[in-house]
C-alpha cells in the first residue's frame, strides 16, 4: 500500500508491505541508515524515531501505521537543537550505533522538560541501551544541552 507521511519536514510517499515495519521501510533502498536495528523487540532504542514528537521504536511499528503522521529522525532535527552538539562536545559516544536514538530521545525529553533532574534523564533514557557504556557522558551531554 502507499503510505504518505511527513518525514523530516518533507511530505513523502512510499510503497510499503502491510507487514513491513517502519524501521525496514525507512532503511530500505539506501534510505535513512541512522535508524538501526538491534533488538527487534522495542527494548534497546537503537531504532528510535520521533512520531509526532514522541520517541517510538520503529522496529515495533508497522509502516502503514505512520500514515499521515510526522516522523523525525536525527537528520531531521532542527538546526538549533542543542542535543547533537552537546553529544559531540561531551564525546558521549564510542561506536555511535545507538547515538541517533539517544539524541532523539533526549531531544524529545528536553522539549517537554527543559530542565530535567538527573533522575528524569536516566529514566527517559532507560529504554536506550549503549553496550559501549557511554551513559555517564550521555547524561552529561543532556545536562549540557539543558543548560
Amino acid at each position, binding site marked *: 500500500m502507499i503510505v504518505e507521511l511527513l518525514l523530516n519536514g518533507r511530505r513523502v510517499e512510499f510503497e510499503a508491505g502491510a507487514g513491513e515495519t517502519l524501521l525496514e521501510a525507512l532503511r530500505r533502498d539506501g534510505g535513512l541508515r*541512522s535508524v538501526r536495528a*538491534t533488538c527487534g523487540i522495542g527494548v534497546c532504542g537503537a531504532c528510535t524515531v520521533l512520531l509526532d514528537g514522541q520517541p517510538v521504536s520503529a522496529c515495533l511499528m508497522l509502516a502503514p501505521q505512520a500514515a499521515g503522521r510526522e516522523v523525525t529522525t536525527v537528520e531531521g532535527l532542527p538546526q538549533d537543537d542543542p542535543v547533537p552538539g552537546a553529544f559531540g562536545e561531551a564525546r558521549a559516544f564510542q561506536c*555511535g*550505533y545507538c547515538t541517533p536514538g539517544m539524541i532523539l530521545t533526549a531531544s524529545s525529553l528536553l522539549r517537554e522538560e527543559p530542565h530535567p533532574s538527573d533522575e528524569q534523564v*536516566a529514566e527517559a533514557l532507560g529504554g536506550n541501551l549503549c553496550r559501549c557504556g557511554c551513559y555517564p557522558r550521555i547524561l552529561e551531554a543532556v545536562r549540557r544541552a539543558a543548560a
Partner: protein
Amino acid sequence: MSDPRVTGEARYAQDAERPGMWHAAFVRSPVPHGRVLAIDASAVSENVVVLTARDVADLGRYGCQLKDQTVLADPARHVGDVVAAVAAPSRAEARAAAAEVAVDYDELPAVFDPLAAAAAGAPLLHPSAAESANDPVSTGVRPLRGTNVCHRFRLLHGDVEAGFRDADVVVEESYRSAAAQHAPMEPHAALASWDGERLEVITGTQTPFNLRADMAGLFGVGEERIRVVARPMGGSFGAKTFTRLEALAACLARKTGRPVKAVLERDEEWLALNRHPAVIRVRIGATAAGDLTAKRLDCWVDTGAYADCGPSVATKLGYAGVGPYRIPNVRVDSLAIYTNLPPNGAFRGYGATQAVWASERTMDLLAERLDISPLELRRRNLLRDGDRFATGEVMHDVHFEDCLQAAAGAVGYEEDPRGKGLCVLLKGMQTPSRAAIAVERTPVGYVIRSASCEMGQGVRESLRLQGAALLGCEPGQIELPDPDTDSSPFDTRTTSSRSTYMMGRALREAVRDLELRDDGHGFGEVANPGGLDPDTGQGTASTHWHQGAAAAQLDVDDETGRVTVGHLHAAVYAGRVVDRAGAELQNEGSMIMGLGTALLEEVEYADGQVTNANLSDYGLPGSRDLPGRLTHELIEREGAEPHGLGETALPPVPAAIGNALQSLGLHLTELPMSAERVLDAVDARERAPVRHAEAAS
C-alpha cells in the same frame, strides 16, 4: 565538523551494499548434537539458492587455532549450528526459505558441562582436529587426544607441594562464572563477492588478516586472492574476531554468482559466540605473617562446540589467575574443553575476567583466615619492579600498588572496610605480535594506512592524534582509510588492548622513515617476540602488562537480595595518555560492562538451548543500573609508553563487588551475583554467622 556518529552519517558493515546483491539466511540445528541424515529443500521457491554439504564438499576446514570447523556442520555440534544456508533477493524471502528447509537428524549424546565433558567416557565432539597454520595466536596448542580437551596449558613454577607444606594456612575454594553475550548493538554483518577467482569480503571484524588467512586456507588459494575490508563496527567486544559468518557468505556468493550479504538476527548472536563459562578451583597457602607460599589453580574453560580462540583464552586465564603477586611456588592446569554449547570466544577481558574473579575472591578468604586486612595482604605480596613473575619474566614499569592504593583511597577503605571490597589485576597483551603502518604525504596532509580496526574503542582517533603530534599537522589533515588487506600493512589483529601501543610505535617508525626518504612515503613496523611454553608456562607472557584495581562500596537489601552499588572506582595504569576522553570512555565502558558481569548477565541454557536469547530477558546494564558514583582514574608516569586500557577496568569489578559482599558476611562464588544468589548467601550467613573458608588438609 560534526562527528558522523552524532549526525547519523556513520556507516557500518551492515550498511555495505553491492548492485545485485542477495541476502543470506541460515538453517540452524535444533538439536545439540546430531548427524545430518537428509536435507529436503523441495518446498523452497525456485528464486532461492540453497547451500548444502554437496556445495562445500571441495572445501577444507578452518579455525584460528584448531582447524575444527567446516562451512556447514555435520554433525551439528550445538543448537544453532548451521547445517544449510540460503540466499534470496530479499532478507524476508531468505528467512522464509530457510524456515522451509527440512532437516532430519540422528541425535547423538551431548554434554553441556566442561567438567563432565572432560571426564572419561564423555561423548566426543571432535575425535580429530589439526592445529591451524594461521598466524600464531598462542605459542602452541596441546589437545589431549581422545578427549574433549582441545588445549591444556600448564604453568609450573617452584615446588607447589613443598610450598603448601611451608604454609601455616591453606585456603581452597571453587568458583563459576557464567557465559555472557557480547551484545554489540550492531549485529554481525558481512558482504561477500567474487570477481573471477578473487574473493572480496566487506565485514565488521577485528581480525582482517586472520580472516584472510582462514579464507585462503578454506578455498585453497593464495592470500593475494582474498581481500578483506573492515568497516567500522557498531561495537564488538571480541565478538567480531576470526571467521564468523564470512565463510558462509562467501560460499553463498560462489554458488549464486552474486554478491551475498549476511546479517545476523539478534537471537542468532547468542548462537554465534559468547564468553567462556569457567570453573576455577583455587588453592592458596600463606605463612601466618601473610607471605604467600604456594598457589594452585585448576581451570575448566568451556569453549563450546568449536575451539575458536579457546586455547589462548585458557592460557591467558591460567596465568592471569596467578595474580600480580610474588609466589615462590605455583602450579596452573587450565583446560579448554569442547561442549555441545554454542562456541565461546574472545570477550573483553579475555579470560582475565573469570580468573581474577576466582583469584581475588580467594585473597579475601585468605585475609579473613589470617585475620589480616585484605588491603595489607595484597600490598605485602604485590609484584614490584624487577620481580620475576611465575612465568619467569622480569616485571618492568610495575604499578600494581599505585592502582590498588588509589582504589582503596577512593572508597575510604582504610578508614572503614565494611561494605567495601578491593581487587587488583594483571592482564597480558597479545604476545608475540607484529604491527606495521604506512604514511603517505599528500598535498593537503597525510594518509595513514593501518589495519587497526575501529569498533568504538577509538583507535582511529588515537592514531590520528599520535600522527598529528609526530607529523606536526592538524588531526583533521590526517586521512585514515578503513583497514583493507590489499592496501593496509600487516597487523596481527585489533585485540588485547594492543593497538595504541603497538601501532603507535609502528607509526613513530613510519614517520621517521618518511623523514629520511624523499618520495613522500614512510613505512614502520614493530614486532614483540615472546610467548609461553604451553607445557611449563615459562617464557614471556606479555611484553606489556595491563595493570589496574577496582574498589566497590555497596549495600544489600537482605529481604530481596538486591545489591545497590553506592560507589565504584577503578584505577588503571595508563603509562602516557594519548586521547584523554577516549581513555576515560574505555574505563567507564569497561566498568559498566564489569557491573553487568558482576550482577546481571548470564546466558542461560536448557539442554543446550539458549533460553534468554533476546535483550529483554538477557540483562544489559542501562542508564538506571549505574552505581551511585562511578569514578575512575588514569595513572600516568612521565616518559612512559602508552599502555593499552581498553579492557583493564572490567575484570576487577566482579571481585571488588564480591569482596564487598564478603565484608558483610556474604560469601558468593558464582557469577553473576544475582539477587537469588545473594539471598542464598544471606540464608547461609544466618545459618552460620561466622563463615571461615575451609582449611584444606
